[in-house]
């Protein structure tokens, strides 16, 4: 039986007050409540503050390159489709550098859980605009403000028929826990965009800023109604919905591959006896 202590990792190098702390704590609680042991799941990450996450808990870990966590996670799932795989990433890592992989993962519906610590800023490189930074925000290297329109991950998810798309808020940990559990229990690719205040570099989207705006999606919101989900995904500004925005029951990528009908690839014996028939194809 795992306990909270089971998931004790290295001491985080995040800034005091960072929105990553409640996400980490909630994640550990979720793993305990789901009865997981550290060796039973894998966390994949890229580069950024969120990417250090797996070192601060206990889990199989592949902390790879900037923006490339999703392809690695996809490879792990295909090698071992019995292994739960979670990606912890940030808005720069996932929505910026890794954008193409995000679209591909949604389309494949690979059974990977994607937790995006979305602080609307580049933290590790000290305050540049990320894809989710508000238009007009002035940064050191954008003295005239951000010109590009703010990226909307949930609208993209609905547009691409992503099988699970939710938003959570780092400081609302009880709600975050439910969303994390729902994502992990969902069969298919799950995006959770977690609003996360950056106390060092984002002086706009602060705890207070989010607290005034976020609200739980209405009980009557039907996440399986794609048009309603799209409307919900477009809400941003004075009121920001958190909760499950969109969900469907598309078959997973793994389910559709006949090679994965039985044991995982990693556990399938290499059968050399079949080579003889293949050699005959050359005659």
């Amino acid at each position: 039986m795992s306990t909270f202590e089971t998931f004790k990792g290295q001491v985080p190098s995040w800034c005091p007050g960072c929105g990553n702390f409640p996400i980490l704590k909630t994640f550990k609680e979720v793993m305990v409540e789901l009865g997981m042991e550290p060796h039973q799941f894998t966390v994949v990450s890229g580069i950024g503050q969120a990417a250090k996450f797996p070192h601060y808990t206990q889990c199989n870990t592949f902390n790879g390159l900037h923006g490339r966590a999703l392809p690695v996670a996809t490879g792990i799932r295909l090698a071992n489709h019995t292994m739960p795989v979670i990606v912890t990433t940030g808005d720069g890592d996932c929505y910026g550098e890794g954008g193409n992989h995000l679209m591909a993962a949604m389309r494949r519906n690979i059974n990977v859980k994607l937790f995006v610590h979305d602080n609307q800023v580049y933290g590790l490189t000290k305050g540049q605009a990320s894809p989710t930074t508000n238009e007009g925000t002035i940064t050191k290297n954008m003295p005239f403000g951000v010109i590009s329109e703010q990226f909307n991950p949930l609208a993209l998810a609905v547009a691409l028929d992503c099988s699970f798309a939710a938003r959570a808020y780092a400081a609302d940990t009880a709600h975050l826990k439910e969303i994390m559990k729902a994502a992990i229990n969902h069969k298919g690719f799950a995006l959770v965009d977690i609003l996360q205040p950056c106390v060092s570099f984002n002086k706009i989207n602060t705890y207070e800023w989010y607290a005034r705006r976020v609200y739980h999606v209405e009980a009557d919101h039907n996440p399986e109604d794609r048009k309603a989900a799209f409307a919900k995904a477009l809400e941003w500004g004075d009121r920001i919905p958190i909760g499950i925005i969109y969900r469907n029951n598309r078959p997973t990528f793994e389910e559709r591959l006949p090679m994965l009908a039985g044991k995982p690839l990693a556990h399938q014996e290499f059968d050399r006896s079949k080579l003889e028939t293949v050699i005959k194809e050359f005659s």
Partner: protein
Amino acid sequence: MDYSIKIGGEAGQGIQTIGDTLSRVFARDGYHVFTHQDYDSRIRGGHNFYQIRLADTPVIAPRDRIDILVAFDLESIVLDEQALTSSGRIIYDSSLIKEHYDKPHFLDIPFAKLAEQSGGLAIMANTVALGAVLGMLGIEPGQLFRIIADTFMKKGDAVVQANKNAAMAGYDHAVRNCTRCSFGVSATGTPKMLIGGTEALGFGALASGCKFYAAYPMTPSTGIMNYLAAHEKEFGIVVEQAEDEIAAINMALGASFGGARAMTGTSGGGFALMVEGVSLAGMTETPIVIALGQRPGPATGLPTRTEQGDLSMVLSAGHGEFPRVVFAPGTPQQAIALTNKAFDLTEKYQVPAFVIFDTFLADSQWTFGGVDENTLQYTDHRLRGEAFRNLPAYKRHALTQNGVSPLGVPGDGPHVVVTDSDEHDDAGHIAEDGATRTAMVEKRLFAKMPYLQAEISPPFFYGAPDPEIVIVGWGSLYGVMREAVDGLSRSYKIAMLHFSQLFPFPLTQEFDFLGLLDRAQHTICIEQNATGQFARLMKTETGFEFNSQVNKFDGRPFTLERLTGELNEHLRNL
């Protein structure tokens, strides 16, 4: 006998199908066959060719001279008429190319009309041409009939019969009308197998227990993906077309981390995108085989043509310092064996392993004696199952005497498997201190190198025992060099060294190839690139400098005549 048959025409005219079918007929009839192709980067139009050499002794290189030219377009005749041997013949259909030739070496065969007369459609003109070539050579059409039956079985008996009739019509027409044809084929040997370059690489992966292949389509590597996809169900391999090359290498690394043997393949431009992933493999010590099909660059270059221009890139690809293995097969047998060895070494030493080839090797075919399964290595170097379960403790990057840490399969044991692209400690966690950094570099790089080095075989030697002249090359130049040595050995004491295991660079303990080169009066390095990348590697690794270099970088392979001519030129001027 040693004949070259060239089939030329536009893309979309079925040139490749004719070429593949004829080569298969010759191989099954027991002849030695070598084929190569040349095509534009387009699906329709342009000018493509497929060339087949058939002989009663082994042939492994392309030739310039043509004995039979099958011309489906005017350009074939314009380009290749002068390459015809004195007894050579050009067959064509004047109704198709809208031109008639009265010269004696031309034979106008109404491919389309004969196809229609045999109860088929004009589209079967190609089948008529197939029959005609066999008729000219005097090779019985039995094997062709069997291939027709296999190919068209699903389309029904009527289609099979119409194609057989078309083939027979072409055959008969050639026998009746090619009255001055003097082709004589020797009695046939035992049936032979025929294998292509990309098939050999794909088979090498299959035979090494590859379980995962991710790639983005790019000439000339796509054939490997197609080959493995055709066998994925039966062998339990997942072949995934990734969204880009960056995803391809990262997926392969993920699959490998997850416990499956994994590979990716690409060409120069795609490989440029993968380079950060190569470095990631080096840092995380994750096994991966990377097949790199070279084509002329820079940038898009000549997309469908051949070059050996990416060796320097592969040797240094990836930021930072880490060991790697680089192989460059020159024959299908080497492609199978070295892909197999790459899979073994990448897992044994946890360093990235490259198999580099080029368009010429990818698209060529050879008859061969088959595969000796006993020569194929398969040792599972991963820590899995019970062995992992029973370990009291585990650290992914544990410091060991030979630098190799146990490669645990995540989930198999009660311990976590942790790795990082950041510098890390023995447990795989991010580390910043200098002592850990130094220890890890020493482990990853220095500790492994002597063991890895010892796995590398010396270059292949062929020719005169105490040669005065030594020609040296690597990769796909094997065949043409070897045949050139055969030809030149009548005039010179000449030999060749062929390097297929390029890095770590072979040592001289087993075979003192440096002594051989030092004793020779003249050494020539032959490469299909502009600057002599292998010659540079040789100088860097051994200090040896060649007397001269022969470089070709027009995107076309060396033919036997061309290489022999260039070497003669060199040697005459000595």
